[in-house]
């Protein structure tokens, strides 16, 4: 199936990737090729597919005595924070001041959360 340049741009915007027209056209062509390949999935009879695959695979059998049956996986009480071994969070930040990460100002009012920045 052909996706089209506009659709590619819409998807790119969702992913915060900037594409000029030429790049968008090229991606459109490549995507169409890949999707033609992927569309073979439509022929599969999925009615018998169980629920999504469980991973890691269940551990069964006498080879693994004493292994608890899979249940909730919770954090162990003694687990420490992997404290930032080298320096502060700001050390790696492109822009940092007085303990805050900085980005160009969002067009928003304090206290609001306007998603989609």
């Amino acid at each position, binding site marked *: 199936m052909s*996706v089209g340049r506009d659709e*590619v741009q819409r*998807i*790119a915007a*969702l*992913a*915060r*990737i*900037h*594409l000029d027209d030429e790049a968008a056209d090229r*991606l459109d062509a*490549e*995507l169409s*090729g*890949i999707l033609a*390949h*992927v*569309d*073979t*999935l*439509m022929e*599969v009879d*999925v009615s*018998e*597919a*169980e*629920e*999504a*695959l469980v*991973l*890691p*695979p269940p*551990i069964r059998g006498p*080879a*693994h005595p004493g*292994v*608890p049956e899979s249940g909730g*996986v919770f*954090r*162990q009480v003694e*687990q420490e924070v*992997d404290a*930032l*071994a*080298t*320096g502060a*969070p700001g050390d*790696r*930040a*492109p*822009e940092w001041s007085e303990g805050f*990460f900085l*980005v*160009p*100002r*969002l067009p928003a009012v304090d206290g609001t959360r306007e998603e989609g*920045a």
Partner: protein
Amino acid sequence: MTPPSALETARRVRVGEVPAHRPLEEALARAREADSGSRPIHAFLSLSDPDRAQEAGVSQDDGRGSFPLAGVPVAVKDNLCTLDLPTTCASRFLEGYRSPYEATVVRRLRAAGGRVVGKTNLDEFGMGSSTENSAFGPTRNPRDPSRVPGGSSGGSAAAVAAGIAPCALGSDTGGSVRQPAALCGVVGVKPTYGRVSRYGLVAFASSLDQVGTFGASVADAALLLEAISGHDPRDSTSARLPAPDLVGHLEDGVAGKVVGIPDEYVPDTLDPEIRARIDEASRHLAAAGARIRRVSLPHTRYAVPTYYVLATAEASSNLARYDGVRFGVRSPEARATQEVYEASRSRGFGPEVVRRIILGTFGLSAGYHDQYYGRAQRVRALIARDFRRVWADGVDFLLTPTSPTPAFPLGERSDDPVSMYLSDIFTVTANLAGIPAVSVPAGSTHGLPCGAQLLSPAWHEAPLLAAARTLERSLGGEQ
């Protein structure tokens, strides 16, 4: 000049024949040597400085005591976090990035006495099958430097193939350890999903990624795998199992085992030389007491498209954190926050990464979600079921080629994504099903290394590697 095996090195260090720091020094010298000359291998993006490592917070034993990897130099793929060396994932975005913590597997290899030689080259963020997608230049195949080493763990495979280190860590999402192992003529293992911790492995596709090991021999790959395996409470997908005993079972042999060869993996279109190598391998296994059978895994032909929908979907989400806010390279011209994201990401990511993010975002987006992501999840379950049926039918291992072609020339495939994706055709199924698999050198085709792949049920790494060892031994490999 090839270094001694990991097993041998560790033994010598433990008994005091060799000081613990010497093997690393020699490995570093060999690494520099491999990059001098007209066709540098370029396996490494960074090399250790043992004097500086401690400053960075690396804790290393002193070499005395019974450490399984005492003194053994290990190459580490540059998508595994280390304290003393950058972790770039071969991406401009992470150029110079210093992780504040170490990956569990790196901590464990150091705790076992192993020494990190350096960080190896890869396809950016693990996306690729040739290591040509690295932002810092490709790696060359030591067996033929005009050709690719495979990918994405091409640097680690090359480091072992070039004799720089006896073993290496890589990551395998769709074949990224096994395929370069096959192309470079070394051993590569992908464990059962959940066998090895992913904490500190920079995620590409979380339900498919596993850390894998390379070795010049099955024994070395097994030794390293043992050292890094086992439950990690920091990884919720890590299985509650201790590290398995692999080295101890290597000589168990294959007597009485059933080896299946799936029809779908030896199609009529398969390169006749590769087919011949697989036939030989099956004869060797039969001679060692195994029974050979033909089997079928009917959903195999849907594996590559399934993989590419699911892996790219997960990747598109995993790579959203690269926004230039907290770390990484930020584009200086951006004025609005959205521009910061777009500019930093577009500048920082190479074309293959962009391609996969777009494809993955597409497959998850409203209107396409069920048709692509939803459907691929269900086909994945069917692929896994194909394997379970074969095991239930009495089969212990499957034997297949690892790669449909030997190493191809640098630059030959880089413009055709679909043909590049099809390199993974024999390897993705193991990731989709979560089962372990190993590639063992099995002679050559067209003068280039060829790999035979063995797969087994989940958690059966010990018998799997015993079978690999049997093949290795009878094909004339390491004693």
